[in-house]
C-alpha cells in the first residue's frame, strides 16, 4: 500500500471492491422442478427420520438418520435402543462421510493385465463373477471363500446359504480388532462363551485392566453413560457417593485419564497386578467368593503370586496394589474389566470379580449372540489359499491386507487365488489386490440387521437412494448364485431385503410376531428393531479355574522396549481414517490431528536422545515403522505407544500416505510387540490445534476435591471479583427466553462426540493438516485439554469449549459493522451477511471460540450432499462461531407457533447435547427455573462455576466442576 493512501481510504476502497464482488455473486438455483408424482412421505423442507443401526463397530448402537429432500444429513442416536439410548459417538456420526466419500468406487472395475483397474458395466461384472464361481464350484467343495466381519443374523444367513449353494464352508469371520482373548478367557472361566453385560453404574469401585471403555472397548456409548452415572457425585443420607476408578495399563488413555488414578504398568503385566490384588484380598480374609468358587483352591492358587515381586516388575507399587485390593474387596459392588491382548488379564479380572462376589451383581451374563458366524479360522483360510484350493475369494466390508499382521503374509496367500472379488465402498489396500472390484452399498443405503447381544435386534434399512452405482452386498451374492449355482441349491429369497424380512419372520415367529407379521415388521422398522431385556443366564466359575497358576510374562533385560498399539478413538481399526472429520478432530489425550505418533516417556526419550517430532524407527521381528515422537509422561517407561488406524497406502484421499500402520510390526493376534527403537535423524512436526497444555493459573477448567465437595466448600476464587460490576452499557433485557447451557465436567469424558455432531449439524468445514498447523481449525466446539502439574488434581483437565453466549460479550462492541449483535434471547448472533472479516471480535474473545474462514470452504462432491440446508454455508472472509444451534431454536419456535403454544423445556436440543453419550450437556431457558437445565444447576449448586468469571462476561454457560480424589505420587 502506498503511504499516501491512509487506512481510512483503504477501507473505503476495500468496501467498494466488496460491493463489486458481491454483485458478481452467482445466482442461486433458478429453476423449480416439481415431482411428477409426489412422495407422500416427503414434504420439501421438513425432515423425515429413519431408524437404522450403526455398523461402524460391533457395539451396534441404534441410529436415527435425519433425511432432508432425500438425502441423509445427520445421524443421531436412537432413543429406543438400549445400547446407545439416543447418543452416538463421533465414529458413528462420521459414517455420513463414508456414505458421501468422494473416493467411493463409482461402478464395478476390472483389473487388466497391466495391473490397472478399468470401469466395466454391472452386467459384465456380474457375468464374470458368476463365471468364476461356476468354474470354481465345478472343481469341487470348498473352492469359494468369503471373508468379512460377523454381519448380523440376516446377512450371516445369506452368506451361509450362498456358500452352501456352492458347496463351500470357507467363511472367515474376520474382525481386525477381535476380542479373542476375552472370549478365550470366558471359555476358560465359565466353560461357555457367555456374553457379559457390564453394569458400571451398579458398582462403587471399578478396576480397568487396559480396557479403554470410553474409547473403543466393547460398547463405548453405553459404558460412557454408565460411567457418568457411576461418577456422579451425590449425597445420600449424609454419605457421599462417588465411584472410585483405577486404570492399570501401559499408557494413559482417555479412560485412564478419567479414572481416579492411572497406574503405569509394564505391558502385559496387568494380569499380574490383578493376581497380586487377589492374593492380598485372600491373605487379608476379605474374599467373599460366590457360589461355585472353592476357597481352598483359590487360596492355593493365589499363594503363587508374590505381591512384592509383581510390584517391582510391573511398576505398580505394592502399597497401591494393597490399597486397591482392600477397596475393591470392601466395596458394595466392584467390577474388574480387562481389555488387553492377553488372555491372562481377562481371566484375572474374572477371578477378582468372582472372589469378591460380584458375578451377577456388577456384571451379569446372557446367552451368546443368536448367530455365531460359523466357518474356519484365519490360519486355516490362509493355508487353503496358499495351497491353491481356493479359486474365488470374496472379501467384503473388511480390510485384511491393512489389518492382518505382516507375518500372516496375507497378500502372498491371496496372490494364489485366481479370482479375488472385493465388495466395499472406498477402495482400500485389499481392493488393491483384487481382480474384480464391486461397489457395495454403504450401510445407510442397504437392508440388514444386527444382533449385538441377546435382547437387542437392530434393523438396518436404506435411508436414502444410492450415492454411486452400487448394489447391496446381499444382492450381489444372490444374483451371482442365481446365475452360477446349481438350481436345487438356490437360496429361497429373491434379494437382500426379502432375506432380512425372512430372517426376521423366522426368528420372531412366536415371539411377538404371531398376529400379523406385516404390522410387526412395520413397527420394528419404525423403532429401529426389537428391544427386550436380555435373558439373564446363570454363570458359574468352572471348577478348574483356580487349579493351574497363570504364567506371568518374562521381564526383558533393562533397555528393552515394548510397542503398545492401541485402537484410536476415531480411526478404530483403520476404517475411520478416510473421514476428514475423524482426522481433524484432535485425539482427546494427545490432541494430535491428521498423523500418527509414538508416545514415549521423557526418560526413555532422553535415553534414546529423541526430541519431540523426531522420527523414530521401531523395528520388530516382523518389520519396521518410522513415526514421529510425542514425548509424554502418560506412557510406561518401557513402552512406546502408537495408535492403530493410520498408515493407509490406499483408502481414499484423506487416509492415503498418512502416518504409519503398526500392524506392519505386530505379531499375529497381539497388539504388543518387543521392538528396538532407533533415531532416524528425520523430523516431522506433529500438528495440534491446542493453544497450551497449561492454564497459566487462569480459572478455565475448575475442579474440587472430593473432600471439599463433601464439606460443601467452594474453591477459593481465582481473583477477588469486582467490588461493583463495572457496566458501560445498560443491562440487557431478556423479555421471554434467555438460552443457557449447563455442562457437567464430571460427566464429560472428552470423547468428542459433541465435536463431530457440531461439524455435521452446522456445516463446519474441515481444513486439513496445513491449515490446522496455522491455527485455522474451524470447529465451533472443542475439547480443551490441560495437564496439571500437581497430583492434587485430575490427571487431565478437559472441558468442552464453545461460545459462551456472554451477556457482556466482548466480541459485540468491537464489531464495526454490527455483525456481532446480541439477541433478546441471550444469543451472541453472528450475522454472516454483515460480516466484513475484520476479526476484531475474534481478537477480543477471551474464550477463543470464534473462527474465521480464511478460504472458501471445500466439500469435494458428493461430500457437499451432507450439508445441512437449515444452516448457511459461510464463504471466505466471514467470521463464524457456535450459535447454540439457532436453527434448532428457530425450528422449535416455529413448531410451537404452529401449535399455538409456547416453547417447552426440552423442545430444543442442540446437536452437541443430543450427541453426548454421558449426557453432560443440558440446554434450556435460564429464565425458567423449572427447566431441567436450571434444575441441574440448582442440584449441583456447589459445583457450578463460569469459565473466566472474573472477566465479568456473564456467560450463559455454567459448568459443573469436576470432582477428583487427589492422586498419589507414583
Amino acid at each position, binding site marked *: 500500500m502506498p503511504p*499516501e493512501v491512509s487506512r481510512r481510504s483503504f477501507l473505503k*476502497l476495500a468496501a467498494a*471492491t466488496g460491493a463489486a464482488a458481491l454483485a458478481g455473486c452467482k445466482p442461486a438455483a433458478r429453476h423449480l422442478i416439481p415431482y411428477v408424482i409426489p412422495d407422500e412421505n416427503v414434504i420439501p423442507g421438513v425432515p423425515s427420520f429413519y431408524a437404522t443401526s450403526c455398523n461402524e463397530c460391533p457395539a451396534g448402537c441404534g441410529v436415527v438418520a435425519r433425511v432432508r429432500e432425500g438425502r441423509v444429513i445427520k445421524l443421531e442416536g436412537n432413543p429406543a435402543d438400549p445400547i446407545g439410548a439416543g447418543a452416538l459417538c463421533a465414529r458413528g456420526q462420521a459414517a455420513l462421510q463414508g456414505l458421501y466419500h468422494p473416493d467411493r468406487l463409482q461402478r464395478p472395475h476390472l483389473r487388466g493385465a497391466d495391473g490397472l483397474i478399468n470401469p466395466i458395466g454391472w452386467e459384465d461384472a456380474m457375468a464374470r463373477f458368476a463365471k468364476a464361481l461356476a468354474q470354481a464350484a465345478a472343481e469341487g467343495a470348498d473352492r469359494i471363500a468369503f471373508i468379512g466381519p460377523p454381519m448380523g443374523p440376516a446377512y450371516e444367513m445369506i452368506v451361509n446359504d450362498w456358500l452352501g449353494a456352492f458347496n463351500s464352508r470357507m467363511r472367515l469371520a474376520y474382525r481386525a480388532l477381535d476380542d479373542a482373548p476375552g472370549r478365550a478367557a470366558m471359555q476358560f472361566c465359565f466353560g461357555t462363551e457367555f456374553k457379559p453385560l457390564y453394569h458400571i453404574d451398579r458398582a462403587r469401585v471399578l478396576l480397568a485392566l487396559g480396557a479403554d471403555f470410553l474409547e473403543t472397548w466393547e460398547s463405548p456409548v453405553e459404558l460412557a453413560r454408565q460411567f457418568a452415572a457411576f461418577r456422579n457425585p451425590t449425597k445420600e443420607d449424609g454419605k457421599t457417593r462417588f465411584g472410585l476408578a483405577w486404570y492399570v495399563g501401559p499408557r494413559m488413555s482417555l479412560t485412564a485419564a478419567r479414572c481416579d488414578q492411572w497406574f503405569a504398568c509394564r505391558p502385559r503385566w496387568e494380569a499380574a497386578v490383578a493376581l497380586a490384588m487377589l492374593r492380598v484380598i485372600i491373605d487379608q480374609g476379605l474374599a467373599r467368593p460366590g457360589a461355585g468358587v472353592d476357597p481352598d483352591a483359590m487360596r492355593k492358587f493365589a499363594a503363587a503370586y508374590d505381591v512384592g515381586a509383581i510390584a517391582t516388575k510391573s511398576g505398580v507399587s505394592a502399597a497401591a496394589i494393597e490399597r486397591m485390593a482392600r477397596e475393591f474387596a470392601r466395596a458394595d459392588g466392584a467390577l474388574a474389566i480387562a481389555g488387553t491382548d492377553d488372555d491372562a488379564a481377562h481371566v484375572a479380572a474374572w477371578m477378582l470379580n468372582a472372589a469378591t462376589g460380584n458375578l451377577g451383581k456388577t456384571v451379569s451374563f446372557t446367552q451368546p449372540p443368536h448367530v455365531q458366524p460359523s466357518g474356519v479360522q484365519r490360519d486355516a483360510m490362509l493355508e487353503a489359499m496358499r495351497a491353491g484350493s481356493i479359486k474365488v475369494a470374496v472379501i467384503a466390508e473388511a480390510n485384511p491386507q491393512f489389518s492382518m499382521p505382516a507375518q500372516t503374509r496375507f497378500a502372498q496367500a491371496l496372490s494364489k487365488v485366481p479370482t479375488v472379488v472385493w465388495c466395499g465402498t472406498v477402495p482400500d489396500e485389499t481392493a488393491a489386490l483384487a481382480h474384480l472390484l464391486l461397489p457395495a452399498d454403504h450401510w445407510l443405503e442397504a437392508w440388514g440387521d444386527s444382533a449385538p447381544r441377546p435382547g437387542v435386534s437392530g434393523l438396518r434399512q436404506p435411508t436414502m437412494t444410492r450415492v454411486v452405482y452400487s448394489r447391496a452386498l446381499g444382492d450381489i451374492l444372490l444374483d451371482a448364485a442365481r446365475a452360477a449355482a446349481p438350481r436345487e441349491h438356490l437360496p429361497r429369497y429373491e434379494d437382500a431385503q426379502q432375506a432380512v424380512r425372512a430372517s426376521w419372520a423366522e426368528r420372531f415367529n412366536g415371539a411377538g410376531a404371531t398376529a400379523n407379521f406385516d404390522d410387526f415388521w412395520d413397527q420394528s422398522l419404525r423403532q429401529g428393531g426389537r428391544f427386550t431385556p436380555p435373558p439373564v443366564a446363570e454363570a458359574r466359575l468352572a471348577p478348574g479355574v483356580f487349579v493351574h497358576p497363570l504364567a506371568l510374562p518374562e521381564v526383558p533385560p533393562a533397555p528393552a522396549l515394548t510397542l503398545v498399539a492401541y485402537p484410536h478413538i476415531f480411526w478404530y481399526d483403520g476404517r475411520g481414517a478416510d473421514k476428514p472429520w475423524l482426522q481433524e478432530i484432535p485425539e482427546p489425550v494427545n490432541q494430535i490431528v491428521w498423523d500418527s505418533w509414538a508416545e514415549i516417556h521423557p526418560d526413555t526419550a532422553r535415553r534414546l536422545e529423541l526430541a519431540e517430532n523426531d522420527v523414530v524407527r521401531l523395528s520388530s521381528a516382523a518389520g519396521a515403522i518410522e513415526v514421529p515422537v510425542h514425548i509424554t509422561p502418560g506412557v510406561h517407561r518401557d513402552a512406546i505407544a502408537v495408535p492403530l488406524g493410520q498408515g493407509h497406502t490406499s483408502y481414499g484421499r484423506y487416509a492415503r500416505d498418512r502416518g504409519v500402520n503398526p500392524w506392519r510390526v505386530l505379531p499375529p493376534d497381539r497388539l504388543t510387540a518387543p521392538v528396538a527403537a532407533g533415531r532416524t535423524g528425520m523430523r516431522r512436526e506433529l500438528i495440534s490445534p491446542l493453544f497450551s497444555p497449561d492454564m497459566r493459573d487462569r480459572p478455565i477448567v475448575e475442579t474440587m476435591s472430593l473432600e471439599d465437595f463433601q464439606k460443601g466448600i467452594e474453591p477459593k476464587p481465582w481473583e477477588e471479583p469486582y467490588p461493583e460490576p463495572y457496566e458501560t452499557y445498560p443491562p440487557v433485557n431478556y423479555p421471554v427466553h434467555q438460552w443457557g447451557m449447563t455442562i457437567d465436567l464430571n460427566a464429560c469424558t472428552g470423547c468428542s462426540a459433541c465435536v463431530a455432531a457440531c461439524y455435521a449439524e452446522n456445516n463446519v468445514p474441515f481444513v486439513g493438516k496445513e491449515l490446522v498447523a496455522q491455527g485455522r481449525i474451524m470447529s465451533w466446539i472443542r475439547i480443551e485439554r490441560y495437564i496439571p502439574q500437581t497430583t492434587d488434581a485430575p490427571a487431565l483437565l478437559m472441558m468442552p469449549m464453545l461460545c459462551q453466549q456472554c451477556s457482556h460479550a466482548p466480541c459485540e462492541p468491537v464489531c464495526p459493522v454490527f455483525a456481532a449483535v446480541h439477541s433478546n434471547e441471550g444469543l451472541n448472533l453472528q450475522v454472516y451477511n454483515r460480516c466484513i472479516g475484520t476479526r476484531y471480535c475474534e481478537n477480543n474473545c477471551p474464550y477463543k471460540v470464534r473462527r474465521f474462514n480464511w478460504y472458501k470452504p471445500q466439500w469435494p462432491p458428493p461430500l457437499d450432499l451432507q450439508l445441512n440446508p437449515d444452516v448457511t454455508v459461510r464463504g471466505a472472509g466471514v467470521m463464524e462461531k457456535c450459535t447454540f444451534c439457532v436453527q434448532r431454536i428457530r425450528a422449535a419456535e416455529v413448531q410451537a407457533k404452529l401449535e399455538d403454544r409456547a416453547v417447552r423445556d426440552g423442545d430444543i436440543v442442540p446437536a452437541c447435547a443430543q450427541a453426548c453419550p454421558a449426557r453432560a450437556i443440558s440446554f434450556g431457558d435460564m429464565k425458567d427455573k423449572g427447566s431441567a437445565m436450571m434444575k441441574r444447576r440448582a442440584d449441583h449448586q456447589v459445583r457450578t462455576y463460569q469459565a473466566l468469571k472474573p472477566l465479568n462476561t456473564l456467560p450463559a454457560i455454567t459448568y459443573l466442576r469436576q470432582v477428583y480424589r487427589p492422586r498419589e505420587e507414583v
Partner: protein
Amino acid sequence: MKYGAIVVAVLILAGGVLTALLSQRPWLAREDVVQPIPFSHRVHAGIRHIPCQYCHEYARRSENAGVPPIQRCVGCHASMAEQVALRPVRKPWIDREQAPFEVRWNRVYTLPDFVRFYHSPHIHAGLQCQTCHGPVQTMDRVTPVYEINMGFCLNCHAQRHVSIECSTCHY
C-alpha cells in the same frame, strides 16, 4: 499523488456502484421471468377460485410453499374437455409409453443463501399470500409486485410486533 489516489478511489467506487446497478441481483424477484408453459394464475386462482394452497400445498406445513406436482394438474385436467395445449401433460397418464411430462419452472422469487424464510408461520398468522406476492389472481404470468428485500420484511414485522431479531432470518 494524493489526487491520484482519490481518482483511483472514485473510479473503483464508481465501478462498484455501476456493477451493482447493472448486475442482476440474484435474490431479487424478477420481472422478466418467462415460464416454459403458458400457465395462467388468473384463470386458476382468479376465475376458477382455486385456493392457493390447493396447489402450493406445503405452505402451511413447511418452509417451502411447494410447487404442485404434475399429478395435481392432471387430477383436474384429466376429467375436463380435451384442450390442445394440455395434450403433452395428459398424454403420459394415458399412454404408458410416453415419457412423463416435466416442467422446469423459472423462479420468480428467490432468497439469498443467508436468509431463512418459513412459509408456515406466516400462513398460520393469517397472512394472505397476496401480502407478499401481490394480486397473483389477476396475473397471467406472475411478476413481482413488491421488492422482497429486508426492508419489506422488517416493515411488516415491526407493524405486527413480531420479532425483528437478526436470528429470526439470518443463521
